[in-house]
């Protein structure tokens, strides 16, 4: 019986689906999301898509933008490949999508910035605006800054500034060892940290400064751990992410290295899963983020927002770990409304200098370079917290507990941007 029903549904549905495809999205504001949705790191892209769709839906439920129009997220797969990113941008132009977002992989971000600079200059009537939610290369808001690019994440220098400020506050930090991935990002981390350590934590002795071949090429970190031990370091500062972080931390824990690990990316789901509770706690693993669920300030946020978070956890079975993506959507919606138009140039102008309330202080989209400025929090992996980390329904039984907030004045860095406005 069910079979017959199914076959009948097929006959009825086919034309409906075909029509639905062609008629979809007549009066929406489209935001193209260019991320890897296939290939080895598709999980990151798909998580991003889920967050974007969820929070865009929240905006739509509240009444949408521009007097009732909905925000529609259009996923565009770049398979983590530069040529695919360009290809998807051409598709964005074809489909008359005027806003794009991206964040996974700063090489793609750079590609989009450069592409839009050329495109928007050649076709001012079809300008496209880029909302960068996670690509952290500092130069995007310095010498490479563009009117058509807005960043909703702290750049590398700001994150390092937050970490180093916290290092300076911690009296137990005497001897520091740095280890970074030897490519553009890791080198930028290294240079920024060297400079800021001298300025902000002159009492700390840098006993080691290492670069490694990036992207999972180092299988065994024990020799590095031995060097760290030999140098007598009590603290490790690293920008590593992915397997380079997971193996590093696991090797340190296995060798009972008695040192705290200051990192940027310890809290992304794949790293928490890969490192595991035991090794993360043994290495006193720390991260710097815009917010986390077990911060004392969490419960002081507006009630509607807490409701939204609860709904998110219930619906997705995942913790909240990247508030910046929600901010991207909220800023986008607010700028559309403020501009009263979906013209990208007007939306961009409206977004400059825009502020919103954050958990520990205002979020400010600096007009001079389109870099968001906000307080950041350093937290350490710990057990028995109120909201343990969940991902796809699995409870990891650990989460992060706050060490301290770094306020905006300590993070805000001068910019060298010379913005050219159309």
């Amino acid at each position, binding site marked *: 019986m069910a079979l017959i029903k199914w076959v009948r549904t097929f006959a009825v549905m086919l034309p409906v689906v075909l029509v639905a495809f062609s008629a979809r999205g007549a009066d929406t504001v489209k935001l193209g999301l260019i991320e890897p949705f296939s290939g*080895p790191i*598709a999980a990151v892209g798909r998580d991003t898509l889920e967050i974007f769709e969820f929070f865009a839906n929240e905006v739509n439920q509240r009444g949408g933008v521009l007097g009732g129009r909905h925000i529609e997220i259009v996923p565009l797969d770049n398979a983590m490949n530069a040529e695919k990113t360009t290809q998807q941008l051409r598709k964005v132009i074809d489909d008359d999508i005027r806003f794009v977002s991206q964040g996974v992989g700063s090489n793609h971000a750079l590609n989009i910035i450069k592409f839009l600079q050329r495109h928007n200059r050649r076709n001012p009537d079809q300008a496209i605006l880029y909302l960068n939610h996670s690509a952290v290369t500092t130069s995007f808001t310095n010498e490479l800054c563009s009117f058509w690019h807005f960043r909703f994440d702290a750049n590398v220098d700001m994150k390092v500034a937050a970490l180093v400020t916290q290092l300076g506050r911690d009296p137990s930090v005497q001897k520091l060892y740095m280890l970074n991935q030897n490519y553009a990002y890791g080198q930028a981390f290294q240079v920024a940290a060297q400079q800021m350590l001298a300025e902000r934590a002159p009492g700390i002795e840098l006993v080691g400064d290492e670069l490694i071949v990036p992207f999972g090429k180092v299988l065994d970190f024990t020799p590095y751990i031995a*060097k760290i031990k030999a140098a007598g370091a009590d603290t490790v500062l690293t920008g590593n992410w992915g397997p380079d972080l997971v193996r590093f931390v696991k090797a340190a824990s296995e*060798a009972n290295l008695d040192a705290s690990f200051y990192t940027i990316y310890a809290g992304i789901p794949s790293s928490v899963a890969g490192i*595991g509770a035991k090794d993360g706690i043994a290495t006193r693993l720390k991260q710097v983020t815009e917010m986390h669920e077990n911060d004392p300030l969490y419960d002081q946020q507006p009630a509607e927002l807490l409701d939204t978070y609860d709904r998110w956890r219930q619906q997705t079975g995942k913790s909240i770990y990247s508030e910046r993506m929600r901010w991207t959507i909220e800023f986008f919606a607010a700028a559309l409304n403020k501009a009263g138009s979906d013209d990208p140039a007007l939306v961009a102008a409206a977004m400059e200098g825009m502020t919103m309330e954050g958990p520990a202080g205002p979020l400010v989209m600096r007009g001079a370079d389109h870099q968001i400025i906000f307080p950041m929090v350093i937290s350490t992996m710990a057990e028995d917290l109120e909201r343990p980390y969940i991902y796809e329904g699995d409870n990891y039984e650990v989460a992060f507990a706050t060490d301290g907030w770094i306020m905006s004045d300590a993070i805000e860095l001068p910019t060298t941007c010379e913005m050219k406005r159309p």
Partner: protein
Amino acid sequence: MESFIFAMFNGVLYGMLLFLLASGLTLIFSMMGVLNFAHASFFMLGAYFAYQISEGLNFWAALIVAPVIVGLVGAGIERWGLRPVHRYGHVAELLFTFGVAYVIEELVQMIWGRVPVPYEIPDVMAGALFTWQGFDYSIYRVFMLVVSVAIFVALFALLTYTRIGLIIRAAVSDPIHVATLGHDIPRIFMWTFGFGCALAGVAGVVGGNVLGTEPAMAIQLGPIVFVVIVIGGLGSLGGALVAALLIGIVTRLAIFYDYGVGSLILALGLEIDTAGMLRDFTRITTAQVAPVLPYLMLVLMLIFKPRGLFGTRDV
């Protein structure tokens, strides 16, 4: 001197893990002439099966059961996949395993998801066994060493002193004559392939919790395993052991004695170029490029001694 011995010792530890990984591959090659590109994928399967089994039962059960399952999977792939391809030659076989590596990686993602699974070292072996130069060696690390050595000894004994080993060695040098003696060569091939994959599975069980069990681990490990068996000389078990130890020790030494191109230039009394296009060359140190050194060794080896250290025939 002490730090030199220390580096050597670390190199041996790492080298033995590499050997464990490579032993199955070199066995398969010596028997069948097939370079199994998917070998690291079987290693990955071993780690994932071990994770799944140790969730349900415990690590020791995983150590026995997971390699058996991996071996059966391998034998199945040989029987229904590789055997039909055999008649198209070795390049087709290599390509077949290359494709299988892709498929296994995707299937693993489909079943276990795209994020790492929490496969941990068993608690009883997590503690430190001894401390040297302030560095704690866990029981598990020594356990890995013991497993690797045991596998080497067992394989060596198997090939040298048993009837099966005799047949295998005979089949390597002259498969046609062995077949005419009434041995079922395709069957021997199937079980050799399965056994080689099971060895990769053992490596996965004991290495997966140290290296991290995730879908990309096969891609990251695959090439280095090739380097080991090519440098050692294809088909030579002893060569694989020596090459694995060599790679382990060289990369360790490169990290401990961190010399750079820059210091060489200074020693020659030249000036360092700090601004030009080539400035990064002068900044490179041996520690930074340590993981790439095996590939350099591979290329040099193949250029100057294409049979590898102990190989008896060309690659």
